[in-house]
């Protein structure tokens, strides 16, 4: 049997969607041995591409599933006849991410953001101790921003010199970031934004239009301006009268305060996350504990569309190429929602694999097919939206890679019990083309993983 299958051949039609990997047009269906695995196919395509020495590792998608075994096994598993011409799509292989560095904090890390340029990359982290920190790439703490009286829930770069943070103390703060010397930098608060009545759990930034969005536990979504001149004055009663910190530090002159451009109410429960539509900056998506994904028109400050799912949504990420919005649920899965009005069903696809709530998601900067998710189960997962199987009622995607926390990996090696490590809930993830995948978690660390 094995000898027979080793010599058996199957006709495959190779194709790809990435233009730089196109094989010559005249190559039609190719007969390959069914004993081939990914590596042999990859070598075959590289030969066709005449790449010479520098081989590009490739992966192969057959019927939306990655080829992980031999073709023969794949055919038998999926009940496909070897007589048919297989349509095989090849993509650049994903390399398993590897942990490069981890930056230690004093408290749980609630959010991470990355600003990268070819010259220098900066990592911003917000922590539950109320501080925001900027890190260089060599695990060097460049600057710390103090000012929030409660946990920082979200922190984002607006520009290389401007940072915004939101906190449980119901404020957003704008910071000026300056690289002063080699190895040091400064974070100075420039603006305090008052307007929310409860913890501001998330902030989204659109630098070109200098707009920010905030998601708050007071059920509202706030629109803010990053410029001091644009912003209206804040409501007086929201500004704390006696700030102890200010009393203690008499030198600091009070930071300017501003209010929101608009507070958009409509959610029935606390708003968990908000994000801009990546193609149209006047559209935003917000998810809430009230099970809904709302589409907002920022120009009119109106809710355009509401999609109700069966569970609380705790994170959101817009995928412009697929015209989908990924929403992480308080249960164990990610629902991909088509926010367009024409969409008939709420859930276009479900990504299953996490074992706990998904609280943060990030898009692959290089590809439109992959997203990264961080979950309370202590893992980050990379999902490929091409890898789909159809279940009875829904389309289900499975994760491609699982990034565990470094501490868990160590514990597994050493055989330590899971309970002794403590919590490893991931609170925030970011994916940058230069830096890689950055995640902050309950283990008080920012972990950087990269596919090298």
């Amino acid at each position, binding site marked *: 049997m094995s000898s027979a299958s080793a010599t058996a051949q199957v006709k495959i039609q190779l194709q790809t969607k990435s233009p730089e990997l196109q094989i010559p047009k005249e190559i039609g269906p190719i007969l390959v041995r069914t004993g081939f695995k990914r590596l042999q196919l990859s070598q075959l395509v590289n030969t066709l591409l005449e790449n010479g020495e520098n081989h590009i590792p490739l992966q192969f998608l057959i019927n939306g599933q990655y080829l992980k075994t031999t073709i023969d096994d794949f055919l038998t598993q999926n009940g496909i006849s070897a007589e048919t011409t297989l349509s095989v799509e090849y993509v650049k292989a994903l390399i398993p991410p590897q942990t490069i560095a981890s930056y230690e904090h004093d408290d749980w890390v609630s959010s991470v953001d990355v600003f990268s340029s070819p010259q220098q990359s900066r990592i911003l982290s917000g922590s539950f101790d109320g501080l925001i920190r900027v890190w260089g790439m060599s695990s060097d703490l460049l600057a710390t921003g103090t000012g929030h009286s409660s946990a920082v829930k979200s922190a984002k770069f607006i520009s290389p010199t401007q940072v915004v943070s939101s906190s449980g103390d119901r404020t957003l703060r704008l910071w000026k970031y300056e690289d002063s010397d080699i190895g040091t930098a400064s974070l100075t608060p420039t603006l305090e934004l008052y307007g929310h009545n409860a913890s501001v759990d998330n902030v989204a930034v659109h630098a070109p239009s200098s707009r920010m969005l905030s998601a708050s536990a007071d059920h509202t979504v706030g629109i803010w301006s990053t410029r001091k001149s644009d912003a209206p004055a804040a409501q007086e009663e929201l500004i704390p009268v006696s700030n102890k910190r200010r009393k203690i530090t008499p030198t600091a002159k009070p930071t300017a305060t501003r209010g929101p451009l608009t507070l958009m109410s409509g959610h029935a429960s606390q708003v968990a996350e908000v994000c801009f539509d990546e193609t149209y900056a006047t559209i935003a998506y917000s998810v809430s504990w009230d099970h809904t994904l709302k589409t907002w028109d920022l120009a009119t400050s109106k809710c355009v569309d509401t999609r109700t799912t069966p569970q609380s949504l705790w994170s959101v990420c817009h995928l412009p190429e697929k015209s989908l919005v990924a929403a992480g649920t308080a249960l164990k899965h990610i629902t991909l929602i088509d926010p367009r009005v024409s969409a008939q069903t709420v859930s276009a696809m479900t990504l299953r694999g996490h074992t706990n709530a998904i609280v943060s998601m990030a898009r692959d900067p290089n590809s439109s097919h992959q997203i990264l998710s961080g979950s309370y189960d202590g893992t980050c997962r990379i999902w490929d939206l091409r890898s789909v199987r159809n279940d009875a009622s829904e389309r289900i995607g499975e994760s491609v890679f699982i990034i565990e926390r470094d501490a868990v990996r160590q514990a597994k090696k050493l055989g330590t019990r899971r309970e002794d490590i403590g919590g490893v809930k991931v609170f925030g993830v970011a994916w940058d083309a230069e830096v890689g995948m950055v995640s902050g978690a*309950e283990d008080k660390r920012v972990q950087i993983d990269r596919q090298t």
Partner: protein
Amino acid sequence: MAQQRAGQKRKVVEIPLAEQVEDNVLGNGEFDEELAEDDGSDEDEEFDEDDVEEDEELDSDEEPLSEDGEDVRQQLRDVKTSSSVEIVDTDKDPDTDLATNGTYTPEKRPADLSNYDISVDANGNPRYIYKDIEPNYDTDDSDAPITKNTIGNIPLSYYDAYPHIGYDVNGRRIQRPAKGAALDSLLDSIDIPAGWTGLTDPATGKPLNLSREELEVLKKLSRNETPGDGYDPYPDMVEYFTGKGMEEVMPLSAAPEPKRRFVPSMHEHKRVMKIVKAIKEGRIKPHKEPTAEDLENEEQAQEYAQYDVWANEVPRPDHAMNMPAPKLPPPGYEESYHPPPEYLPDKHQQDEWEKQDEEDRTRDFLPKDHSALRKVPGYAKFVKEKFERCLDLYLAPRVRRSKLNIDPESLLPKLPDPAELRPFPDHRSIEYLGHKGRVRTIAIDPTGEYLATGGDDGTVRIWELGTGHILQKVRLSTTDPVNIVSWRPVASPPILAACCADSVHFIVPKDSATVAQSEAHTLLTAGFSSAPAIPTKSATGVDKPNPSSWHTPIPAHASQSISLTLSLRSTPKTLTWHRRGTYFATVCPSSSSPSTAIAIHALPTHTSQHPFKRLKGLPQTALFHPSQPKFFLATRQRVRIYDLQAGKLVRELLPGARWISSLSLHPGGNNLLIGSYDRKLLWHDLELAPTPYKTLRYHTRAIRDVAFHPSLPLFADASDDGSVQVFHGKVVEDGFENATIVPLKVLKGHKVRGELGVLGVAWHPREAMCVSCGADGVVRLWA
């Protein structure tokens, strides 16, 4: 000469008749009239003579032929004279003319001579002796001679008005043959069929068809010629019946039956008489004398029959008083006289069987092999066996057991599939770590953002529900545990009541908005101005210590955002808020006097009431009705419902539990859940009986806490066995349907420490999430 000729001619006619006739017809009908005329007169005369002479000679065998010949001749004569086709009477025969003369000559009977011989009897009358009719050949047979007309001399024209033309010998009508229409006959004449003569057979009325050979023979005969070429007019006599050795002995005779045929045989009579004589004399006995043995057998048989009570049994309908005897099982292979070898016991088994006590044997015989059935000896135990069988039937009482063919699945109540009842918490989501020692109490604030817990370490901790991050830690005591935390059920401003030792502390979370904080503070401290504590005087005049006192917190507490402290004189174990958040009740089971055990406090005025002066049983826990002024108070074994406005007992529930631990009221207000330390969870429908509507015994240890979901049809209980069980409990408000209770999920994860498992459970106000706290110091969110 004429006689001779006629004889000769007759013989000639026998064979080649057809040819002659045909010739004749040809000559006759179409072209040869002259010829026919020539043949004419002399022939007639000749025939006349011939016939007369002939008839005298006729034998029965030859008669039909001669008649036919005559008919033909007659017809030919008619043709000659009239040349028209008509049915011609046979009666115009010269021989019938003779008959009409009056002198009857039996020899000249015209018809059916084949059937009988005619002779003259003694009186000179004709006697018809019919030949025997062979039974197999009836008149219906196709071989039977064709029907002959028996109408005699009556002209056929007499029958013109009838559909028949006469009668056959058996009296049946001879039907007139179907005649074609004129056109048909014309067509027939044009298209002449083979053998057409234009004559009609007078006997049948059908057209007479003669073959060419027949006509030829007729023609030759009429010309007195030899009928055919190969005709020998003088053949050699063939001696069939004469001559030597050919004498025929006639087998049949008409002799009368001999007398001996019908007279009894003398010889037989003699023999019979001989036997009769012997019987009379007793030499021959008519039947065998029964021997003594035979008599005995007969008697036995009769006796046996007397005792066969079932001999005449008729099947009776099934009834408890009339039960048929149970059937014996059919014999197996072992009981065969010639069993298969595998059923035969070997030596060892045989010994074993013989050694065994008779009562212990599994079967009471040993299989034995006999090569043939006739070699089988008598069954030694037959009588014994039958006796025992009878004994069984007679003595053993027979009870009819109706066999229950019930599918056990069908007995289970029809419950919906848990998968259809989603959402409900089914996995652990977030752990809130930090408490040292048992976590005794847990509460989620009305907005669903914060979680408060209190434990043995004397701290109250407020957590962010969604992240598991601690927001605030309030240390109330270093020695006493926090027994109760309870959020004021109004969302804003957030106020948390926590009971530690004998005081109740009101905490305003410092994380809440400044506006809310100030609001909460004013709300809590407003009572100081409005209601100055009036010390009550006892009968002796000494200031009776006030059972409850409201005061500002001590500085250590005030710095931890505690705004108000209420001191009671014993440790409250239950603190339950009224829906509007203005009143709350405390229950101190350890209180010395029952009157102070239960207190209802008004927060805005800082006043306390003790509505129960006397109470039967030890108070355990209490509840406010969500919409009506009703108060539920649980003692160890009873739950009493009081009307607060009327100040009287409305109802008493009898849950049947030995020690009630907790109560939870459905948000609709008509269903009460009671958890008890004796492992029972009791669902009371307040519109039904005071006894429980459902008793759920699913825990192996005491139930500590029970909670209804504020909005979804869910409830959960926490038990010392370390599990939280989630149930679907749907209440239909119209009251026509009872509540549906479906066990959904057992949430396991808490460890049992020192006999204590999960101590508290609480629901998120909107989501299908619940939190639980355990003796292991862990607080968990289940989603």
